[in-house]
Every structure is written in C-alpha cells, then in structure tokens.
C-alpha cells in the first residue's frame, strides 16, 4: 500500500517539477537559438546551434548593462536604507516604551490593507513638486520605509531578552549604541531575510519605476524589458535573452540564500 502511495506521490511531484521548470528552461534554451528558430512548428526545445548573438546584442546595442546597473543600484540602495530605518522602528516597537506605541503599531498594521495604487497618483504629483520625478530618488524614497518590514523586525525583536538591553544600559551603552552593537547583530537572521525580501521586491518592482522614470538611462531591468518588448516583440529569442538576464541575478541570490528566505516567509506568516 505504502509503495503505491509513494509512487503516486513521486509521480505527482515530478509532474510538478516539469511544469514548474519547463517554462524557465525553455526560456534559457530559446535565448541561445538563432533568430526565428523559436517560431517554428513543431517548437524546438533546444537550439540547433547555440549562439550568444542575442546576449551580445543586448549588451552592445541595447544598453542592457546600464539597466542592470540601475536595477542593482536601486535595489541595493532601497535594501540598505529600508533595512536601517525599518529595523530601528521595528526594534523600538518591540522593545522601547513610549506613549501611543501600541496604538501607532495597530494603525500601521491596519494600513497594510490599503493597496499601494491608491497612493501612486498623489505621490507622483508630490514628487513632481519636489522635482524628483525621473530621478533615482523618486524610485527610492517611497521604498525607504515599509510597514511589513517593520512588522517582521518587531516580531523578531520581541524575542530579544529585555535583560540583555538592560545589561547594556548598565554597562554604559547609549540607546543608539545598544541598537547598533547589540540589536542589529542579534537580529541578523531576520535582517538577512528582510534584505532578501526587499532586494527582490525592489529588483522585480515594475509599476512604480515604470511611472516615475522617463529617462531610459535610468530604467530598471523590468521596465527596460517591457520597453524592449514594445520594440522587439517579434524577436522572440532576443526577448528570451533579456528575460534570462533579468531573472538571473535574483534567482542566483535566492538559490544561494534560499534557506533564510524560506524561513523568513514562515516567520512572517506564523507569528501573526
């Protein structure tokens, strides 16, 4: 009985594996095909002769290096800044006493239901007033503080024993010192997770950079890719190469750090 069940389970799991991985593998494969090869019947799974032409074209003609740089720059900046600000706030909500703390925190949680699209229109007008449309800052600023990040850090910081903070106070550390030399190292697991979350979120973000950036020298990869699609919709293989390059960095990052990423999701969901 168990053997039959086991067989069925494995069959289903491998089916899932095929369904999940095939599109991605095909994308990689198609990116190495010669022009027009992906649009044939029956569809080809592997290139007849692998070529790097499309990758070369992306970097030489289509400026992909620049977009990758922009994506990396913005995602890194958003990650660092938001990590800093969110961890400060999350720690304070968990461990410091001040009037209205719990009420403010509840209000923040309630605000999670508001779809971000509501804010986009006025935000655009505000940034325009501040002269920040079409600048890196325009992409960066709205991502600098994030309620979910604060929540995640707070949940984790709750587990830091108060006595540790008190000990540091008695040992003569200032409040900022306690945060910097004690809380941050102690929160390292959640910080790594949140950093991954934020980085991937920023890397994959599409709608806001699409709205706020007009100058193509500042485009992020997804925006550039959508742009490229408008122009090269017929060049399947080129688009696949662009997609591969857009996906590759986050995928690598995930595979390397998948453990803490997955744990982070569990943490964010269970400690509700």
């Amino acid at each position, binding site marked *: 009985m168990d053997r039959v069940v086991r067989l069925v389970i494995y069959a289903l799991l491998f089916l899932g594996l095929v369904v999940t991985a095939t599109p991605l593998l095909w994308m990689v494969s198609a990116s190495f095909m010669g022009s027009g090869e992906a649009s044939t019947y029956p569809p080809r799974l592997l290139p007849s002769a692998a070529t790097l032409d499309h990758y070369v074209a992306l970097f030489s003609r289509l400026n992909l290096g620049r977009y990758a740089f922009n994506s990396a720059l913005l995602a*890194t900046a958003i990650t660092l800044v938001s990590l800093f600000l969110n961890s400060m706030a999350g720690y304070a909500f968990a461990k410091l006493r001040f009037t209205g703390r719990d009420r403010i925190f509840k209000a923040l949680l309630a605000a999670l239901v508001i779809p971000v699209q509501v804010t986009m229109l006025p935000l*655009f007008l505000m940034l325009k007033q501040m002269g920040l449309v*079409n600048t890196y800052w325009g992409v960066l600023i709205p991502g600098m503080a994030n309620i979910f990040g604060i929540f995640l850090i707070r949940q984790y910081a709750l587990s830091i024993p108060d006595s540790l903070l008190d000990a540091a106070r008695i040992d003569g550390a200032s409040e900022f010192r306690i945060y910097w030399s004690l809380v941050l190292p102690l929160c390292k697991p959640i910080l790594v997770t949140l950093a991954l979350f934020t980085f991937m979120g920023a890397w994959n973000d599409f709608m806001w950079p699409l709205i706020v950036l007009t100058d193509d020298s500042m485009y992020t990869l997804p925006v550039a890719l959508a742009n490229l699609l408008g122009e090269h919709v*017929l060049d399947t293989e080129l688009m696949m190469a662009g997609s591969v390059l857009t996906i590759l960095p986050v995928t690598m990052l995930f595979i390397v750090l998948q453990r803490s990423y997955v744990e982070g999701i569990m943490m964010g969901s269970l400690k509700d």
Partner: protein
Amino acid sequence: MIQPTIRSICFALLILLCGCDGEIKDKVTIDFWAFGREGEAVQELVRDFEAEHPHIRVRVQQIPWSAAHEKLLTAYAGDAMPDLFQLGNTWLPEFVALGAVAEFGPWVRDDPDIDDDTFFAGVAATNVIDGVVYGLPWYVDTRLVFYRSDMLEKAGFKTFPGTWSAWREVMERVKESVGPDKYAIFLPVEDWTIPTILAMQQGASLLADEDRYGAFDDPRFREAFDFYLGLFRDGLAPSSGGSQVANLYQEFSNGYFAMFVSGPWNIGELKHRLPGKEHLWATAPMPAPDGAAAKGGGVDGATPGVSLAGGASLAIHDGSEHKDEAWLLIRYLSGTEQQERFHHLTGNLPARKDSWIASGLDKEPRTRAFWRQLQQMAPTPPIPEWERIARTIGRYTEATVRNTMTVDEALASLDEDVDRMLEKRRWLLARDQ
C-alpha cells in the same frame, strides 16, 4: 567587522545617487527622444551633427512606439520633457494645448531653405495650429496596401485595384485560391487607422460642432465601418487578432495572408527581413470608394482614396533651456541630404519633396505608390483628445469584429464615450469665450 563595509557601501551609494547627473561644463547637452527604429537610426546622423557642432552633445533616447505617447505625457506631467522630441503629428495639438511645445515662427520664417512648397502640404498642415508653426515634419507616413504580387497574380490579377468594390473582388478571389487556412488580408483587430481612413474616404467628419461631440452615427462612417467589418465576416481576414501572427514578416513571406495595410517603414523592414524575395511583394495606394460621393479621393480608381496624413514631426519643449541648439539639430535633420540619408537608414519617407526627387523615390515603383498617396491626405481632428478617441475607435472596432457588440451598439457607445471625453474641452471652450 561588517559595519565599516556597510558604511562604505552606503557612502559609495550616496555618491552614485547624487553624482550621476554630472555634466561636462562648457558643452551644451540636449536630450532628444526618438521612437522605435528611428531612435536607433538617428544616432548615426546625430554623431555627424555633433562633429559639425563640437559644443553640442546630443543624448538620444529611444522609446518604443507603443509607449511613446504615454511616455511623452508622463514626462510632461513629471516636468521631465526632453529638449527636443519626435512627435506623431496627430499628437501635436495635444501638446500645444498643454503649452509643452515651443513656437517655431521666427526660425521658420527666417530660414531660406524652407518655404510653403518644401514639404507635402497635407503633412505640413498638421504642424500648424491656429496659424502658428509648432513643429517641422521629419518624415511622412501614410497608410497604403502591401501585397504579395505573386499571390494576386495566381488569383488572376496583374494590377492592384483602385476602388472598394474591385478591391473586395480581388480579396475574394485570393481567398478562394489560398484555401481555408490562409487569408486575403491581415488586419489587426484593435486597429483604428483603417476604419478611420475608410470613413474619411467616405467624407465622414468623425467629430461635430467644432469637435465638441462625436459624430460616429454619421451614415458615411457607418458605411465605411460595414465595409471594414465585412472583410472579417466573410473570412477574408483572420478575426483572431494579432496574437496569431508572431512575426508579421515571416507570415507574409509564408503566404499566410496576401495583403496588409501599413506604413512606409515596412518597405525597409520587408527588404531587410525577407532578403531575396523583393520580387514577390509590391505596394499600392488605398483604393477609393466607388462613385462620386467620395471626398478627396479620385473617382473610381483614377486617383487614390485619401489616407491619413501621418508622419512624425520634430518639436522643441517650450521649457527647454537650449532651444537654439535644438533648432540647429532640427534644421540639420530636415536638410535635403540628411533626409535622404535618413530614408536609407530607416526606409522612412522624407518629408521634403526635393529629397524624394533627388533620390528618385518618386520613380521607384514601391515608393511611387506612396508618392501618389501623399498627394491625397486628410488630417485627423486637431484636438488634444484625439489619441484617446482613436484608441476608443480601435476598441469598438475590435468589439464588433469579435461580435461582442452589434455595429449599432458599438457606434452609439463610441459616441457616448467620445462625448464624455470631450466634456472638459466643451467646458474650456465655453469658459474661454
């Protein structure tokens, strides 16, 4: 341990974030937005321009046509307009109304190289609003028919027809000869240009009362619309939309369809993408409606029916700090010689007539169709809302092609939608009177 690293990364980031816009002092940099293929090709011309004007640097940004209108408006809304930009000439009224475009008056008047007969009249007219010049035509564009001459021949036709009825007949014959899996003509289902051209050929005005209201219940519009829909209904065109056609050129070459209606850039594309098959395809002006009621177009095929006065103009952002330099570049790009070069690079047709004659385009068979067509052009209504109205026409066209709406419903809703879009225009007009 890790802190110094983080700190130095932060610092480096700050420098990057602040310092990326650094400019070299004594050079003037002008931003130039160009769309699609033009954006790629114009770079070469711009390099020569920079060589001629060492104090000017031009940053060309290439924007896909599909996003161009949106991007320009976003840039306007966000105060991020380039100094100089290409502009579909049906969009010009919109940007003029917004005060985003600089007047060309003195420059054009004082220029010895530009007079009333330099450009095609129909196209030049789209750059003038209330008597003021706001843009200079860069290249012209109109829609006409590309067809597979071999397939037509196989169906028994040596020349392309000049009237709607004859056109219809050709399509029917072609369809008979290619069988059920292939089609006579390919028409993108959500397209607004072809129904609009057909309607303008019928003499429909599209909008009424100084463009305050939609006028799509006009029987002339209706007639054009019916003709257009008939092509789908009778199986002459595939009604499944563009997604069936992954690659227009490949499918055209495969004989999936025998005709399509498009603009001049496809001459270049077809040459480029279908090497060695030049003898298989040709171009022809839009057929004209039958009978004398038609507006503009000639009677029964003697002259082409009207088509859209399309094309792209070059305009200068009113808030630009480098208008003079931008004008220099425009002047350079609309010079006879550069127009010719641009044609060779992109296949786009020069806006200057003398460039046509100098390069013999008016004689070459494929472009000759355009030369003829360009004499027969009509502008779309010069109002800011046009682009949106045009897309709405496209949407309702699609709805009828797909049979989700009857023609009556579609046209009524179209009128209703357009009236709503024009509400602000009516208010503004009433207010300013």
